[in-house]
């Protein structure tokens, strides 16, 4: 009976309990995975609080984001961050990462550990013209877009051509 009452209360209150504007995304009605990109040196800033034991108690801290990522040259290292809701914990599904540039496509598979994927990736050829990183798992498909390098504002050796081995 108590459970029935609880369900009815939840049914009644759910629509007004929280909404998409909630700051704390863990408490939103649909708690979806989150994705972000970071340079290796900046990974720590994007690890969500639940995944970072050093910041216990901060329940509404950072979340992964694509926004802070600058343009990349081919061969540059960056990290893909994929975070599941703490309520989901672990899934049985692999995370498929897709890297797409104007001249290359690559697919990488990763697995969550404690709901978190921190996957170092090397930017593929033509990354300087822009890169789309797609993270797909079960019923979630997220994308981050890395902007192209602004050639006009950059020095000519920002993305020096890679030396081909043997040449």
């Amino acid at each position, binding site marked *: 009976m108590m459970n029935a009452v609880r*369900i009815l209360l*939840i*049914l009644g209150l*759910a*629509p007004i*309990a*929280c909404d998409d504007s909630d700051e704390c995304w863990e*408490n*939103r*009605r*649909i*708690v*979806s*995975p989150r994705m972000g990109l970071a340079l290796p040196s900046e990974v720590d800033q994007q690890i969500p609080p639940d995944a970072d034991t050093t910041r216990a108690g901060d329940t509404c801290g950072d979340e992964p984001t694509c926004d802070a990522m600058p343009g990349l040259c081919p061969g540059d290292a960056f990290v893909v961050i994929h975070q*599941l*809701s703490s*309520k*989901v914990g672990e*899934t*049985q*599904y692999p995370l498929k990462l897709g890297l797409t540039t104007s001249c290359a496509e690559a697919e990488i598979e990763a697995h969550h550990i404690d709901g978190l994927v921190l996957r170092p990736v090397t930017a593929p050829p033509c990354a300087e013209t822009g890169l789309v990183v797609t993270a797909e*798992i*079960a*019923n*979630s498909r997220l994308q981050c877009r890395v902007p192209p390098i602004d050639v006009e504002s950059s020095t000519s050796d920002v993305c020096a051509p890679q030396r081909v081995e043997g040449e």
Partner: protein
Amino acid sequence: MIVWWLAALAVAVWSLAPNEAVAAPSAPAAPDAQPLRDAAGSLRKMCAKAPDILVGNSEEVREAVIRVQVADAFASKSLQTERRSAIESMLRDPQPGDQADKLERDLPAVKRLDAELGAATVAGTDKILDDTKRDTLCTQICGDAATVMLDVCAFEDAALAEAALRIDPGAVAIVLAHVEKRLAELTKLDTEQAKAVEDYSPYLNAKDDVREAMFAGLGAGVLPFVGAEQIGAFINTAAQALAKVIVDRAKREAIGWLLDTMAAEVCVSEKDKDAAAETEKKWVREEIERHWLPNLCTLAKKDRAAHYGAGAAQLSALRAAVRADVGGLPGAAVGLGLGHLFLETALRPVRSNPRLPGATEGVVMCHTDERKPAASVSGFNVCTDALQVRSSAEAAMRAIVEGSDPRTALDELATEIDRVNLGTTAGAPPIGFLKSPQAQLLACALSMGRAVGDEPTKPSVLVGLLEAPACWTLVGSGYENLAVALATPGTKPVLAIDTRVSGQQFEQLSTLVRLHKKVRRPTERLLDASKKLAAAAKRVAELEDDAATPQDVRLPAPPTFDGTKKPAEAADAASTYLEDALASQLQLRRAKHLHAIADVLEAAADVASTTLDLLESVQPSIAPPPGTELLPGLKYADPIQGASAPTVAMKFTATTFPRNALRLLRVRVATIKRAASLARAIGDEDWGRAGNDGFALLIEAVTEVRKRLATTTKDPKKGEPLTDALDPLGKHLGTLAAIATAKDSDEMAEALDAAANPPGGWRSKLGKGNFTASLTAHAGLMGAYETRHGIYGAQFENWSNHGQAPTLFLPFGLELAWGLEKTVLALFFPIIDPAAFLGYDLGKGGRLPGPNPLTVLGPGIAGRVAFGKSPFGLMPFVLFRPRYRTWEPTANGPGAHVVQIGAAITVDVTLFRLFSRGR
């Protein structure tokens, strides 16, 4: 509920089990036994531990193995050119020499193998065979030691091999497959290596021969899988057997439940018996239990009927009880009519007389009143008498429908009525007084069938009025019997019929003829009826004579035996044939006999009817001079004159002849006559017709009694409970007829199952005032608002809202339905929804729920409004589907719980009625 779960489980098991067992491979009629013998011989050699055979050829074995290894090396792409040439050369020249030696140096694998083979030449076959495994195998399949499970080696014997293949080739194939598999475990050689040396190894010979035997015996390509198929067939058979057991059990549970329901609805419950108040319900139920369905209700006491839901023998006993009750329905009807007639007329000859104080209103109440002293009137307990009359009538009618001579049975009934009807009191004549003149007239009429004799003439018919005891009470003028009257001096004015009739000369019946001129025509009609009765009785006698003498019996064609059946099967078939043939003959004779009995009963009823006409016609409209009355006994229906209180003026003389009562008497006779059709139906073993005829008789009798109760009590509702009692009986009549008709327990079980779960159950929910509790499925189309909670794929849904697009809906659960004037309102509590797998998620590209063990669960609550008087309806509902939304199939993976609020258009499929009230 348990019944349903059993049934659901059975259905599930049944659906999982393949409908057709995998057939075992058909064996050839006479497979060649030689390969089997060869295989057995090889196995014996292998098990004889004869390493000398291999050791003696060890060099050749070594060479052969090296050649195989070398051939493998030759196939290698990385082989250098010169070595390749050397190998080619060696392979062309099989003699090992320098080249081979060189190869051995260059090919480490060859050297390693050779070293092993070198060891083999010293240590026997150990390096090629696992001796321990071989010994284990051999102790199981070869020889006659105690550990041998099956002596396969014994198939070396030609006769034994031949016999084994003829009797059970499938089993031989399984054994060979097993042996081959075990043999394969013995060797360390791969296929090519084994092939190279097989000619030198008894083990390899055995392996090869076993394979050959398998293929030769049952066909290539099939045999290696025989074992698996056999096992599959066994599992399927076992699963089907299990399913059948569960289905049978579920059916028998249903049958037991139905019988309990029938018993509770039509018989007296223990609760009723304990009731302090004498309620109408109680006397009605006692009426059913004692007279209408005595056998079934006896079984039904204390849930005894439920035990008849299990076992063929018990079902047969139940069938016998039901048949007895169906056969007793005419007796119940005739007994009710006669009993009520007696009660209504006893000690109340004049209709206008006030009711006697304390008298019971109807014979149906006598079961409760008979225990009360207040029911007696002036020292006479008319209830006891009425019940006695009723009991005698039931016995007589039962005897008739079972094949007794109706003339005898009716005469015995008449004699019993005569005995009960005569009371003694102060001032009464020696033979007593008549409690009910009407009953006495009827008794006289009923007894005339026997009194008219086998060759009736006009005198003999009239003399029957003297010889039948029940008639003598009316015509005997107070004497005990004719002999006493004749022996009494000065009896001239006493007897109505002249004593000279003892000579049976019609002209000597002076008194009758002289005083009662109207008797000629009724007498002729009585004579005609009597002749027909005699003819009908003669036919019965002829049938009995035929049965006593050997006749040419037409038997159906016996079964043919073509020699393929085993002796036991042939014996069983012959026995079944004989039983069927005899049963058919017995049934034929019984049918003829009962049809003839029915003819006699109809003729006897006609005689009774014409006798009533005669008795009515001889009664003068004015009082005749003393000593000239034809029915002087009627004047003794005046017992209480001068008696102490309660003094009731009772006048019944010849001038107040109960002409009004004659109509009732003729109705009773007509009821008896109609029982003939039931006898015919029983003779034909048409229990459906018998049940209908019997029930129709009962309805007529009950309706008549109800009318008379309403008239005598001036309360139109007085007899209604009695007619209401017919409803449950009529409701179950079809089931009773099906039980009685069933030829065996399986048929009976099917009939009961059909009765327990009839199609069109939704109809029973219709009608104002009806209430039905049932296990019901609703099939339809639904759409819903859906809120989810839990892990769905990679997302956690926290009571998020979605829509469930229209999809199939098949909820099953408990329904409580109330019938209204134009519709049905119902509360439905679904438990499962087998169509839940089709709840596609439109927001995720139409993805279906990943099946898991909880997917079909859908507990909840629903309302239902029927569209008029139809099975269609609108059903708003709320369902909770646990772990319903799972991304992929899973046994115990995560999933989101779902609450659906929606509506469906459904069709009511009532599967099992648990309780119903109303119609």
